[in-house]
């Protein structure tokens, strides 16, 4: 019967694109990213084998057991087989999730190292802003009433607070290469999502919450940040970039910003 070969061809075509990697991840730029890709590959191998075997088997029974005048077998099941495949899938699926837990734990169950550079991330309809604490190492006071996007004050920094005076605000996320970064994610209107493909990291920004999030980027370059939680009509253009710089360039940029204040 035609459907059997159709299923086989579909299966081969789909598998081909997973092997050819025509459309694929960008290269990772962190240790976490490398581990992520390993876990992805493990999952792909397990699910790929199941996918291939199940579809091929489906095609096979379609071809093999078409009505050719035989009498069908009168069979109600097989408890041994039932037990076997139930336990096999349980072990495989739960095994996979347990293997990935270490990756999750490093992202979410551990704190950023004490020397991590803190940066506050602010999401708003439809732009990103990033705040650095300045030479005093402290984030200064903010006030909702002082928010002025056109005037370059999306955070509502209070200039009367000396700790706020030296805070740097940037429209892109600039970080030194190889240094742990601690983000504090926060939004002032609706839910947004911070996503950097090359970091293999994603986290919602939730109104009313300040969510800590840490990473270390090991490769200099510019990487796009697309908002990845529906935030309204401009969602598709809520873009910024992560710029991973050499330490010297990062310091230079900070000094230039401070000089302009």
């Amino acid at each position, binding site marked *: 019967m035609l459907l059997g070969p159709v299923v086989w061809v579909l299966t081969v075509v789909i598998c081909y694109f997973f092997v050819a990697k025509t459309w694929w991840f960008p290269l990772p730029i962190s240790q976490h990213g490398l581990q992520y890709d390993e876990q992805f590959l493990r999952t792909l191998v397990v699910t790929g084998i199941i996918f291939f075997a199940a579809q091929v088997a489906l095609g096979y*029974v379609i071809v093999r057991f078409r009505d050719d005048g035989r009498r069908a077998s009168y069979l109600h*099941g097989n408890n041994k087989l039932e037990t076997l495949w139930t336990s096999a899938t349980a072990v495989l699926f739960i095994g996979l999730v347990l293997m990935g837990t270490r990756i999750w734990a490093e992202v979410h169950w551990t704190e950023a190292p004490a020397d991590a550079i803190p940066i506050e991330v602010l999401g708003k309809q439809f732009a990103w802003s990033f705040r650095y604490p300045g030479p005093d190492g402290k984030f200064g006071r903010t006030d909702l*009433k002082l928010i002025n996007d056109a005037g370059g004050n999306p955070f509502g920094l209070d200039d009367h607070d000396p700790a706020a005076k030296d805070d740097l605000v940037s429209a892109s996320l600039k970080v030194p290469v190889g240094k742990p970064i601690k983000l504090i994610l926060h939004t002032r209107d609706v839910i947004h999502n911070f996503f950097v493909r090359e970091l293999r990291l994603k986290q919602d920004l939730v109104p009313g919450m300040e969510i800590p999030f840490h990473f270390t980027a090991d490769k200099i370059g510019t990487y796009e940040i697309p908002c990845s939680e529906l935030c309204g009509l401009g969602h598709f253009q809520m873009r910024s970039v992560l710029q991973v710089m050499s330490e010297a360039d990062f310091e230079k940029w900070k000094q230039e910003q401070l000089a302009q204040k």
Partner: protein
Amino acid sequence: MSSPEVHSAHHAPTSFIGKYVFSKDHKVIGIQYYFLALFSVLLGMTLSLLMRFHMVHPDMKVGWFEKLWPTAAAGGIMTPEMYLSLMTMHGTIMVFFVLTTAPQSGFGNYFLPIQIGAEDMAFPTLNMLSFWTTFLALVVMVAAFFVQGGAPLSGWTAYPPLSGVGRISGPGEGMGQTLWIISIAIFCGASLMGAINFIATTLDLRAKGMSLMRMPLTCWTWFVTAILGLFGFAVLLAAGILLLLDRTAGTSFFIPAGLVVSDQILNHKGGSPLLWQHLFWFFGHPEVYIAILPGMGVTSQLLSTFSRKPIFGYRAMIYAILAIGFLGFLVWGHHMFMSGMSPYSAFAFSVLTMTIGVPSAIKTFNWIGTLWGGKIRFTTAMMFALGFVSLFVTGGLSGIFLGQPSLDLYFHDTYFVVGHFHMIMGVAAIFGMFAGTYYWFPKMFGRMMNETIGKIHFYLTFLGVYAIFTPMHFLGIAGNPRRYADFTNFEFMNSLMPVHTFMTHAAYFTAAVQLLFLFNLFWSLKKGAKATDNPWESTTLEWTIPSPPPFDNFGGHHPVVYHGAYEYSVPGAAKDYVMQTDPAAVSH
């Protein structure tokens, strides 16, 4: 357990209105639900075609756009907010008015009473009410298109604060969003009425000899789906009312303090956006099974019928249905791995999520086991059931990626998710509906559908849906976020445009193919060959009565059941199937 008593809740109505409009006959109500879903699926599909068009031609001017939507497509160019409205309404209409409505309320209403040997549902008046309440919900939902600002743009999940603070968060978030919530609340009421009716009918109206362990698997899935609906829709109703209060009465269930939207400082304080997500997904995840379980039931029924073999592992199938129903309530958190909820509970949710993969795998194995050693008859209905198995495997396996919080760190809210749920909850479920249509049409309307057109429809649709939804997985792997009106602002998305263009063309093609189905459906209603009582040589009770069935189903006669539902190719039997009502002995 079974009730031998005569159940004569009502008599055949004679007026047109009593017979076809405000009918209390479960068969008429089933058909009403079916056509409501058919209207909705055509609407939902049209919206998706407009979306696909916009994604590949975000700036193209189309003359008739402006005529139809003078504001949303001013100048003939669709605005991003219009795209989001289409997306919101596509998801909402498909999930509620198609996937929840056709398999359960449509086919379930028509065939549950007949398959268990009852004259009607337990509460015929409630049944009528639940249909007309669903109808009202659809009217209110569609009305959202026509109010100022248009339909809402917060997606079918309606996450606050976007959905909770009114017009300042975007056009469509005014009256459109309010109507959306009201419609959903009405729909919840209708579904609760339906759920109670299905549960009572299954438990109380089974014919003599129809023990639970002899019920067709279709009945099992309708029964468990009704239980999911009872617990799920009750919670969504509560959540919807709270959201409505946040919008209209100034309460703060979901909106915290300190928000500035469109330069306005809001007065809300004390709410939590995560609370909505928990309540929504407490409903939303079981909803996935509400959509797919009846399709699994139909597939089981058809694979057994058309391979002329008993279902492989009947009891294991029932335990798997029950396990899916139960676990379905414990995994909602896997929609929220990135939401800011505790990363420790994410771990628990992920283990439970993987666990629910196990009964799903059992079902797949048992389907292949059913086909093994069979004598397969390739009717169109059977082809769709086989297609269901293929799609269920494909769509299920991508869930193994998404169920791991570690991998979700990248895949959450990318096209990988869109591909996953369309494959399994969308098209697999729709294949279940097609299978049910081709299988039961002769019983419902007394005429056969055209098999040649049916098979062409099957092949083109099968290839079409794979062509639309497989590439989405690759887009997701490349990191393409979902719910983007256009992709021109990001460098990496520009390079993915050929994939989007391919999918858009595949969508046009697959939608066009559905005209074959519509033609076949309506042509066969009038011109199809006359159907016999049991054209497929099936064993279940609906095939013991005339096509179409008389008003009280069994013509005043009370069927007695002697066998399970899938006695095919019994050694020594005269034919290769033994009806459930056949007193002849079957030795196991």
